[in-house]
């Protein structure tokens, strides 16, 4: 007879090193103007010289989450090529969040750099 031991069936957090910083990057890209998901990903990848790679599996949930939270606005538009795409745009709340996140990011990276230099 088969025994099945599943004590705590819980969702494990996704291993994704970009999870924390993806949001700030999306906000920053959209700061220049509204854009669609694919363009956002491409922009991040190209600007970082292909160092940062945006997983689609993370990007779209993040975009939807940020829309839910009121950081972004989304609407369907027709691209220059004549295809329908979903375009995202910063809201006032999103702009404010970006400023805060940028500040926080700089202080954290500065702190990390200092530790790396000193120790």
């Amino acid at each position: 007879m088969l025994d099945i031991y599943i004590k705590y069936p819980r969702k494990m957090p996704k291993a994704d090193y970009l999870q924390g910083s993806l949001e700030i990057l999306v906000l920053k890209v959209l700061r220049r103007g509204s854009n669609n998901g694919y363009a956002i990903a491409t922009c991040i990848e190209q600007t970082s010289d292909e160092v940062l790679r945006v997983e689609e599996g993370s990007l779209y949930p993040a975009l939807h989450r940020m829309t839910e939270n009121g950081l972004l606005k989304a609407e369907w538009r027709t691209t220059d090529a004549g295809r329908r795409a979903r375009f995202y745009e910063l809201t006032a709340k999103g702009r404010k969040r970006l400023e805060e996140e940028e500040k926080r990011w700089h202080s954290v990276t500065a702190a990390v750099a200092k530790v790396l230099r000193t120790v």
Partner: protein
Amino acid sequence: MSLWSRFSRTLRPGRHTQEIEEELQYHLAMKEQDGYDARAARVRFGNTSLLKEETRAQGVFVWFESLLRDLRYGLRQLRRTPTLTLVVVFSLALGIGANSAIFSLVDAALLKPLPVRNPQSLRLIEWSTAEGWPGDLCHMHTGDTTGGANGPMRGSSIAPRIYRQLAAEQRGFASLIGFSDPDKAAVSIGSRAAEQFQLEYVSTNFFEGLGVLPRFGRSFSSRDDRAGAPPLVVISERFWRSRFGSRGDVLGHPIRINNVPAQVIGVAPPGFFGVQIGEWVDLYAPLSALNAISPRAKLDRLLNEADTWWWVRQMGRLKPGVSERQTVQQTSALFQHLVVPPNNRPVPGKIPQLIASQGVRGFDPIGNDKARALWILLLLVGLILLIVCANVANLLLSRAVARQRESAVCLALGAGRFRLVRQYLIESITLALAGGVLGLLLSHVLAEAIHSFIRADLNIGGFDLHVDARILIYTALISLSTVLLFGLAPAWQLSRASVNDALKAHGRTFAIGRLRFPRALVVVQIGLSLTVLVAAGLLGRSLANLATLDIGFDRNNLIYVSINPWSAGYQEQQVRQYLERLRAGLAAIPGISRVGVIQERPLSGGANSTWVNIPGQAFHEDDAHTVLINSTSDGAFETLGIPLLAGRTFQAGDMSPKSDAVIVDELFIHRFYAHQDPLGRQFGTGPKPTELYRIIGVVKNSRYNSLREAIQPTMYRPYTTALWPGFGINFVIRAVLPVRQLAGPIRQAAAAADPSVPIVEIKTQTALIDHLLLTERLLSILSGAFGVLALLLSAIGLIGLLVYAVARRTNEIGVRMALGASQSDVVQLVLKDSFWLVALGICAGLPGAYFVGRLLKHTLFHLQPADPWTAGLSLFILAAVAALSAWLPARRAAQIDPMAALREE
């Protein structure tokens, strides 16, 4: 994203999925266009449906979506076990229905505000004095009084003329309305025979002041309150419906009230019953109509043209933002100015002043004992609901056990325990709401049945019991609270379930070990049943004590015929002649052996009292000098069967208005003439007796005003000395035939004596006593019904549990029998099991029974709360029912075929 779009997304998940799909398609297309390999791109994308799931899971309203899904699933589950679902819903409906029925009575009688505009701003206006009765200002008071006997006194009513002036001149209240106590009136419509209804005389601003708009027609205007005009009436909506069949042409319809023609001018709105809760008034007439309609108006004229007969109650509506104290003070000053005649100033302490009290529930004639009775019923019916919940909990628990495998699979596949618990709770809530809706229907029927019992055979009075928001909310609340009681048990059981055990086992052996929880529930049920049974037993025995109390005369075959000869316009001399004429006519009816005249019927709820003043003894207006007084004709004691102990009873020669003869009872002698020969002695009544009475006889004690209170000294006077103008009088009849055979001949005799004098009612002494014991009977009947219900529910609970337990132990019993156990051994096994349940239940129930007994202390008559007989009987009944219930599963266990049981394994 707007709230609406989130919501619509939840309700229409398909469209949202489509959007995500489209967005991802665009992404892939772009990638392909940029030179990526389509397949590689798709691989990189991974599981698109998982991505969709995750994107979708962001929805705030996702819980709502899963809730809908759970609800659908729950309904499917309930449909799958229809018998169980029906049993659960019906038991809940019974419990909830009984509860809301009793609650609707409690609410109508004790809690609900008056059905008028802004009842919070209404104040009852009454009077108070510092030193007792307000002297010569008032000779007769109709309404409520408390206190007195030279101490502070409070009364409800003032004279009508004073009221009219006060209402016209006062400026403090937005309006000051006046009204009489409800009065019984004989109303006939068209050629139909007259019926009794409650009539109230009201001021012309009554409806307007209360903010009650007539359903149609008009209410009174100031012109309607004048003497001489034909009486106008506003009728209740209930009266309009039942007596006019809701006809539209009712306005201007002539009706006769006490044989006086009157006209209907309006119909009150539905549910408006007046301002006295429980005394539903069906007809309203202006104050001045009293003179035309009421026979008592003759008394009014006798009592110095109205000012000394105080019968108008008042209610005032406060103006918003004006100080209540100031308003009352101003009005009171005006009242004192109006009420005290300039030439006759009484002592200051006897001048009444006005006081105000909260009027949100109007004048509340529900007595304390009735209120207590209703609360007791609510408590008992609450216990019934607990028993129902225990039963339902056990039923659902058995279902939860049956579904344990399913739950375990869900858990194993990754469902959250919370989600499963929620699933069960949703099913429970669905059941409870279904039970609640059905219960609401049931409650209306039950409440109406109880209501008609309270109103007895009288067609008058009553409460407003229509289902309103309050009853709906109450029913919804108790329905949902039952969920907490019965729904949590299976959910809790479930949350403890071990996935491992459940999946490993098959068949019955995996279920909850020793049925500990179901057993506990049955124990609780038995305990609660014992509590209800003891309460029912105490109330039943108390009623029996009251009903079999020695009242001093033979209550059987005694009939009273109530008449009011004054309503035919007689003068006092004519009334006497009429009474003698009718008495002779009644005595000639075959089947009637004796007839007498009596002013107050014993044990009819009314009694007169006075203070005895014995020459040579100190006099006080206190309880020690208070005696009851009644007046009778010759032959009345013989008719009643009250034995004569000394002297003689009244003779025909005593029946004159000037007679000084008085008959007293033993207790009177004991209190005022101990160790003396009372015959021939003289005494008077009141502080300054104007005449002295001479004792001509002594009779045995009898019950006059109450069954509960201690018997009081009583004196009897010839009825001819106490013919109050306007007040009805009674014939007392000793019959040898049942009352229904005599009613016809009695009416014929009355018509022969004078057809214009209506018979008010014909009642037997036993019916009067039944009416006096209405509260006790209501309590006894309902608690008895609750007791039976509790027993039945507990029996079902016990049988269910034992049947289940036996079914689970089929194998074990089969093995035992195979190893040589006899059928009686098996029966014993099951009986022993149930014995412990019942014993524990009784232990659990005894404190509850004791507690309920304590609560009933003031309701019980000649009975201790811890009455051993009642407790013993309750225990016996409970044990007998439990034994009977256990017998069935025990028999079934004994009939298990060991071979079949073992083969099954």
